[in-house]
């Protein structure tokens, strides 16, 4: 390999970003043409610098709205394109989402890594988007990625030959802009980073012990050497920033000497600088300990671990082939199993299965064999199936009422009263519950009373076709058809009639459990005479 091509793939990072911004893949001429090709490129870079400034110098959030105000100002004052709020918002959305975020799609640029002789895909990601929940929904806050900072700094702020970490540079820039509050946060995060570095190092050593066979020793030495160099460089840079802090402190002291007093904001700045200074010295101390141990830097080590363990060792299946394609081959009967595909991703909600109400439901004796409940989506829980099940249940109850009334009358020598029927039937608690559920017994009796005479013989002789489309409505034709099929007694009946017995009333008390609540009702009834006429008279 040519020595001068070492690190070439890193150089190409700059080209990758420029390519993504200049050779825009999804151009919208209707927006760009009004401003012009080159002016539009100027506008894109201006927006990037605006996002950088917002993130570095102010505590304000950088939202689409903030950016669109900036774009409107630029268009009005520098681009000869007076714009309304609406239009500048449209231009901003286009720049931020389509150009800087590539419509949300990950963007890659092929680069040659001469060190291993392989083409690599370099990810281009210029801005970060953090989504925050607000009372109205979600709001996006934009900031530059480290790649974005690196790119912008190199266009103006720093000389190419300087090597530094972006975090450190941000701190220096913040102090330069006298944004001590943010600089303090930045210095805090530097301290955390160094501590994290220590933890990661320990983690790496642990992983190395566990996966000793997977580690290339020559690479390990290389890593240690390069890490040591990196740490030394960072140590120097932090020293430089400490000097900048000292200069800022001296500036404040000079001001105090001149005016004889310190304003509140200057006092605050002094405190913040003091804190930054303390953070920097503790960061340097931690770094110096690490350097002394020559144990490596987190950047290289962690990226090695991540690359090795996350992206190389973890093979991933082809979702299109293994899920989508197979779903396309699924038949309707298979749908009830498909919930299993998504089960690991959905919320854990044990409480719907462990709720207290279950303990209070009617209990039954424990049997030796418990019925296996088929997991998954029972088909019958879908509404169409549920309607069918309800219609079936209601019709069964109609049949039970009609048959039991005829039987009761026949038992009593051809006629009985509704009062007697109820008194006898109540003794069979289970069946009584069944026929009084949803007041079915009483609504059925009202219908029968309205019909008054059911001429079974005439129906039998009529030869009319009936429509067997089961619903929960009281369909006399359908019920007679079923009774003729299933009931020996009905096959010998010619007529059944229901007539009111004047002046004979009685009271019924029934109880029903609905949603774990027991309802008690009192119903007053006129007594009804139920009379059956058999075929032989």
């Amino acid at each position, binding site marked *: 390999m040519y020595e001068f091509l070492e690190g070439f793939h890193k150089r190409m990072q700059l080209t990758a970003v420029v390519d993504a911004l200049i050779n825009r893949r999804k151009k919208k001429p209707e927006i760009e043409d009004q401003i012009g090709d080159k002016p539009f490129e100027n506008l894109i870079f201006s927006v990037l610098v605006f996002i950088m400034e917002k993130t570095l110098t102010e505590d304000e959030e950088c939202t689409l709205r903030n950016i669109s105000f900036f774009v409107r100002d630029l268009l009005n004052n520098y681009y000869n394109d007076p714009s309304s709020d609406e239009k500048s918002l449209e231009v901003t959305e286009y720049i931020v989402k389509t150009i800087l975020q590539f*419509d949300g799609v990950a963007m890659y640029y092929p680069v040659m890594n001469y060190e291993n002789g392989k083409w690599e895909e370099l990810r281009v990601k210029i801005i970060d988007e953090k989504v925050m929940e607000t009372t109205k929904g979600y709001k996006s806050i934009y900031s530059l990625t480290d790649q974005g900072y690196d790119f912008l700094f190199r266009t103006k702020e720093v000389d190419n030959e300087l090597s530094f970490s972006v975090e450190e540079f941000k701190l220096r820039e913040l102090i330069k802009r006298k944004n001590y509050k943010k600089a303090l946060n930045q210095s805090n995060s530097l301290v955390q980073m160094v501590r994290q570095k220590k933890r990661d190092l320990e983690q790496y050593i642990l992983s190395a012990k566990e996966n000793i066979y997977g580690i290339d020793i020559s690479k390990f030495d290389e890593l240690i050497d390069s890490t040591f160099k990196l740490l030394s460089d960072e140590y120097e840079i932090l020293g430089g920033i400490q000097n900048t802090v000292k200069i800022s402190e001296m500036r404040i002291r000079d001001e105090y000497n001149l005016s004889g007093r310190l304003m509140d904001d200057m006092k605050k700045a002094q405190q913040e600088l003091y804190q930054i200074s303390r953070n920097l010295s503790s960061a340097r101390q931690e770094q110096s300990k690490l350097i002394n141990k020559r144990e490596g830097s987190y950047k290289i080590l962690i990226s090695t671990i991540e690359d090795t363990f996350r992206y190389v060792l973890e093979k991933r*299946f082809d979702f299109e082939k293994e899920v989508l394609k197979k779903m396309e081959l699924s038949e309707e009967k298979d*749908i009830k199993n498909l919930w299993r595909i998504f*089960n690991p991703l959905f919320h854990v909600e*044990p409480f719907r299965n462990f709720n207290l109400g279950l303990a209070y439901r009617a209990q039954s004796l424990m049997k030796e064999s418990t019925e296996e409940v088929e997991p998954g989506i029972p088909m019958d*829980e879908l509404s169409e199936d549920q309607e069918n099940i309800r219609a079936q249940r209601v019709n069964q109850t109609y049949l039970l009422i009609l048959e039991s009334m005829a039987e009761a009358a026949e038992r009593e020598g051809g006629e009985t009263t509704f009062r007697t029927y109820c008194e006898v039937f109540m003794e069979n608690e289970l069946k009584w519950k069944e026929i009084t559920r949803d007041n079915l017994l009483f609504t059925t009796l009202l219908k029968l009373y309205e019909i008054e005479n059911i001429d079974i013989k005439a129906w039998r002789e009529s030869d009319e076709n009936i429509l067997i489309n089961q619903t929960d409505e009281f369909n006399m034709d359908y019920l007679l058809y079923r009774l003729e099929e299933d009931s020996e007694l009905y096959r010998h009946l010619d007529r059944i009639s229901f007539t009111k017995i004047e002046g004979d009333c009685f009271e019924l008390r029934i109880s029903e459990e609905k949603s774990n609540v027991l309802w008690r009702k009192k119903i007053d009834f006129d007594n009804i005479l139920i009379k059956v006429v058999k075929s032989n008279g």
Partner: protein
Amino acid sequence: MDSIRTAMAIFKVLMEKGQLERENDSELFVRYSEPEIQDILNEMSEEMDCELLRIKDTIYLIPDYDNTMLGFRNKDVREWIGANARMSDVFLGYYMTALILNLFYGGKNRDPKQREFLNLTTIIEELDTRIQRILSNEEQAGEMEKEYSLNFKNIALIWDSKRVFEDGSRISTKLGFLLKVLRLLQLEGLIQIAENEKEIRTTRKLDDLMIHYYLNDSRINELHEIFKEEK
């Protein structure tokens, strides 16, 4: 005894929230790494048919694919689509979910996450393209039998008959149906729908689970089981 108590406390949080974060439960998070506590938790999760997984600063409780006790159930699917849902609607909902996951995480080995956000129109267009592929090949019925089930062809017709949009966003329109599915995914903490309902983004939970667990090749047997059971 202390270890059992701590393991129970960890499991309680996981049962309540489905995840335990370093930020909110730092003490429990740190103690999770103790081998004795891990042993207890492993036994508990084995008995409960679930898996505990630490991804960066979060520990997730992931129900096994056929766990009906902790996972989601038919009730959710009904709420998802609506009271008059037919099986074809439920299937379309599942297929749409799978399609969205594929659009976000179809990157296979290189970098599974392919997008930061996804426009609703892109989802509809993608589904339209797939459906058109089936419908335009309708005359070559013999070939299609191999590629698509009768059921799926039926779904294709149902989707194709829906209008793109009309006021009221009912499930009879493409956009209305898509929003139904998206709202459930949002409720499950997997995606965020933008305020203007034009685009969606994935949550950290979905990114974590998809990249570090769900798409792992080691799960392929589970998927084979699911589709085998159907046959």
